[in-house]
């Protein structure tokens, strides 16, 4: 109850920040960072949904992201679809693939899912480079047209500047995040959490975890796919580097830092982790070293995110006063 209240206020505050941001920093550079931040917020949430709520570590989110991007781009360029149905189709295709690999691997184990999710991203990368008749190979598809919205009676709006695109990506991101929020708050979402917290207990009560996990994977793939389409139509090009391993590492950090299973925590972490490297401008090699160390430190000491830190300190103080009992990590 309290959590959902925090999350509603936190979400509203973040939205307000996003709106104010665009007026305070109107340069295309700042708006570009804002668009990237909105993209990462959705991408990190998609991992949060699978990992934080579904309990499954996934290396597939970037794969879904790229699949949605490529699907939308190919539909628009080759078959003349308009952007909106194409982006939706990208999300749906990603969701179908997600459910398929989830079904195939989860019959064995959660570890198999992790490995298959990584392999899937790598296959998609390979296909993007080598299925040249469809994907145009390594050069990708440049010159993607700007999405438009035409309302009858008004002249059509074209999203072809950083300012207009900022509003497009903000709107889509908020819609996708609200969708996730709604599912998490529903009965299915509570069931996901129950399974994650105590799988044997859930199973003993006759709950089959598989459909709930497939729901988490499918929805996370859908939002990643749609935001992938939004992302590349801003760049105006999609190419195989969209499957960059770096994105996987970055969203993993965001989720761990924000706290798996914390909706607003992950959003905040995504925003901070898009803006911070831009401000610090540290070299990528050093960044990768820092990210690696951060991953290790978080997984070792704060598996539930930074938000847990104050609680941990309080508990530690209590525990040490009552004898040096070691606490169990969640």
């Amino acid at each position, binding site marked *: 109850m309290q959590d959902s209240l925090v999350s509603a206020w936190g979400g509203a505050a973040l939205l307000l920040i996003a709106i104010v941001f665009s007026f305070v920093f109107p340069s295309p550079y700042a708006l570009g960072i804002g668009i990237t931040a909105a993209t990462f917020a959705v991408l990190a949430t998609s991992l949060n949904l699978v990992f934080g709520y579904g309990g499954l570590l996934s290396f597939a989110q970037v794969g879904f992201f790229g699949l949605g991007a490529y699907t939308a781009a190919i539909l628009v360029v080759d078959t003349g679809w308009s952007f909106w149905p194409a982006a939706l189709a990208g999300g749906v295709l990603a969701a179908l693939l997600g459910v398929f690999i989830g079904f195939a691997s989860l019959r064995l184990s959660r570890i198999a899912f992790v490995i298959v999710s990584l392999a899937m991203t790598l*296959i998609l990368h390979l296909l993007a480079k080598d299925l040249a008749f469809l994907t145009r190979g390594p050069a990708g598809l440049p010159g993607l047209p700007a999405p438009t919205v035409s309302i009858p009676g008004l002249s059509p709006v074209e999203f072809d500047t950083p300012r207009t695109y900022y509003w497009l990506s903000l709107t889509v991101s908020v819609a996708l995040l609200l969708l996730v929020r709604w599912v998490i708050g529903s009965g299915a979402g509570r069931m996901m959490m129950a399974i994650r917290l105590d799988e044997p207990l859930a199973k003993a009560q006759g709950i089959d975890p598989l459909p709930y996990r497939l729901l988490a994977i499918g929805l996370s793939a859908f939002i990643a796919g749609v935001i992938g389409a939004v992302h590349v139509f801003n760049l105006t090009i999609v190419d195989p580097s969209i499957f960059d391993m770096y994105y996987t590492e970055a969203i993993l950090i965001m989720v761990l830092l924000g706290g798996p299973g914390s909706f607003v925590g992950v959003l905040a972490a995504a925003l901070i982790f898009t803006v911070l490297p831009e401000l610090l401008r540290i070299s990528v090699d050093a960044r*990768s*070293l820092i990210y690696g160390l951060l991953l290790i430190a978080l997984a070792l000491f704060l598996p539930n995110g930074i938000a847990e830190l104050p609680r941990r300190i309080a508990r530690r103080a209590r525990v040490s006063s009552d004898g040096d009992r070691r606490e169990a990590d969640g």
Partner: protein
Amino acid sequence: MDPILLLQQLANGLVMGSIYAMIAVGLALIFGVLDIVNFAHGELYMIGAMATWFVAERIGLGYLQSIPVTTLIGLVLGYAVYRLVRDTGGSIERAIILTTGLAMVLQSSAMLLWSATPREVHFPAATGLFELGPVVMPRVRAIAFVAAAGCIALLYVFLHHTHLGRTIRAVAQNPRAAAMVGINAHAAIRLAVITGVVLAVLAGTLLAPMYAVHPVMGLGFLVKAFAIVIIGGMGSLLGAAVVAIGLGSFESLSSLWLSAVAAEAITFVLMIAILLVRPQGLFGRSARL
């Protein structure tokens, strides 16, 4: 099809397979005792190769002299990996995150320390070609094949015919029962993890004279090793070894008809197909978790 070409590709495949096996068996061993997938395995192999270059070429000790040094590095790294993953409280996801972090640290450190420039390791005693009837291969590959096969044979003898090795197998099969009969599970796990890591590092040392050595050479093998371990049945050493040899031969023979890229895609598709029809893998124990 030219039979000599066929034979030649089969020989190439066996060499490749033995190298895959050396990397995959270590991965399977660590998985067997801890149920942990070591995502840093490919980078450990890379560190083995780069350390070999550093000791043999930069310091100038020579290739053979570098082997004891890299073995020592393997032992130290093995202990570090063990310390890192031993207390994950059964959370496979946490273990994967930890080893992913370790992989990033190893790779970026190698990049910062030695730059991305490809390096060369010389092994003067192994230049020239080795001929066996119509089949020809560089001597350095023949040596790598013998060494890799030797390492795997040694591992087999160790696991099956020594007391320490048997404790590892006991822990892998049933940690609780092993503890009940008085086996120190921690020691067995530590030994298994260190062995797996040393195998990866030594594979790097072994391959260093064959390949250009650079910080991103690890990834290519890691994913193949995963596929091998999944197809072979997770945690099955025999499965890993057999599938590795099979994969090496398949890649090599299929290259006569298919592009290398297609062969790679087929490997992945095969992995997912096997999960669908036979989730425990070809040689696996029944499904767990």
